[in-house]
């Protein structure tokens, strides 16, 4: 810049105040969208109810505190921490279930993940949250199957099968990191969870649309950072 003049970066000051505001708002929009890697603002077609969202955020926070309080003891392990200054931008992604087919003994839930981040992020952890209904006395076995689309066939294949014992009503968590990582590596945006009960119990879930006990998956991801060294 010539001596005594404004810097090139401060050219904004020369604009009229209304034009200045428009430029700044446009800059703010562009900046936020580019940092979130969004080509345009998303159109929200199925907003989640406030109660459902608040419940999910509280559960996430409670689990984070539990994990922080007892390192290494939480099921599924703790989230690895990067060295200061080396970590990429981190994301926590909440995916709520879409209900699928169900019978008297089984319930299917579908989760669709965010794939804008898939190519350039690593999955640190993914946790499935389920709210069990209050069963009659005693323990009740539930078989949880994580189903993935088979790239070579029209059907799904069982990626993981786990048997759980439900003893009381309330929230339960299940580590699904491996299944989500596998989906990401295959570029498949959908995970199906099948819950099967032994019989006579009915649906194991207390859930309905708009319900604050709706199942969800929390995925923690981190943007990959380039470790390439550059010589100047």
């Amino acid at each position: 810049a010539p001596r005594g003049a404004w810097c090139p970066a401060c050219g904004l000051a020369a604009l009229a105040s209304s034009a200045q505001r428009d430029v700044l708002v446009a800059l703010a929009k562009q900046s936020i969208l580019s940092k979130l890697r969004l080509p345009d603002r998303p159109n929200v077609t199925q907003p989640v109810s406030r109660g459902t969202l608040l419940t999910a955020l509280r559960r996430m926070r409670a689990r984070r505190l539990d994990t922080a309080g007892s390192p290494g003891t939480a099921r599924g392990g703790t989230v690895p921490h990067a060295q200061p200054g080396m970590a990429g931008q981190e994301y926590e992604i909440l995916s709520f279930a879409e209900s699928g087919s169900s019978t008297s003994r089984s319930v299917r839930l579908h989760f669709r993940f965010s794939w804008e981040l898939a190519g350039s992020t690593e999955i640190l952890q993914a946790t499935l949250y389920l709210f069990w209904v209050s069963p009659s006395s005693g323990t009740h076995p539930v078989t949880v199957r994580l189903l993935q689309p088979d790239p070579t066939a029209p059907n799904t294949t069982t990626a993981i099968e786990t048997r759980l014992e439900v003893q009381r009503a309330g929230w339960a968590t299940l580590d699904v990191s491996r299944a989500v990582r596998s989906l990401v590596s295959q570029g498949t945006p959908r995970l199906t969870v099948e819950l099967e009960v032994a019989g006579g119990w009915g649906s194991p879930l207390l859930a309905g649309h708009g319900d604050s006990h709706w199942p969800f998956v929390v995925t923690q991801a981190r943007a990959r950072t380039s470790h390439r060294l550059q010589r100047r």
Partner: protein
Amino acid sequence: SIDCSGDSRMCCRKEFFVDFKEIGWEDWIIQPEGYHMNYCVGLCPLHMAGIPGLAASFHTAVLNLIKANNADAAVDSCCVPTQRRPLSLLYYDRDSNIVKTDIPNMIVDACGCT
């Protein structure tokens, strides 16, 4: 760092708030209600170069070297952010998932001359 006042033309931090409701973004950004963008504006005469915050930077050292060796080649410095913090967002993505993230260096807290 100095916040801009009416009469000063020196390097300062100008506050600027983008209200998400005003720009029609409140349907996909759940929190916060707006973005404290802020920016740096104002004159940076040569004697102000390197203050505050950037005194030890590589760029200041180069500038000082130029100043010391050739006064005619001296250039004015620029008013730039010297301290920034992240913007925490909770928003819907294109698949109607809810994403929570901190975008680094989005909010200007302080300005200074390079």
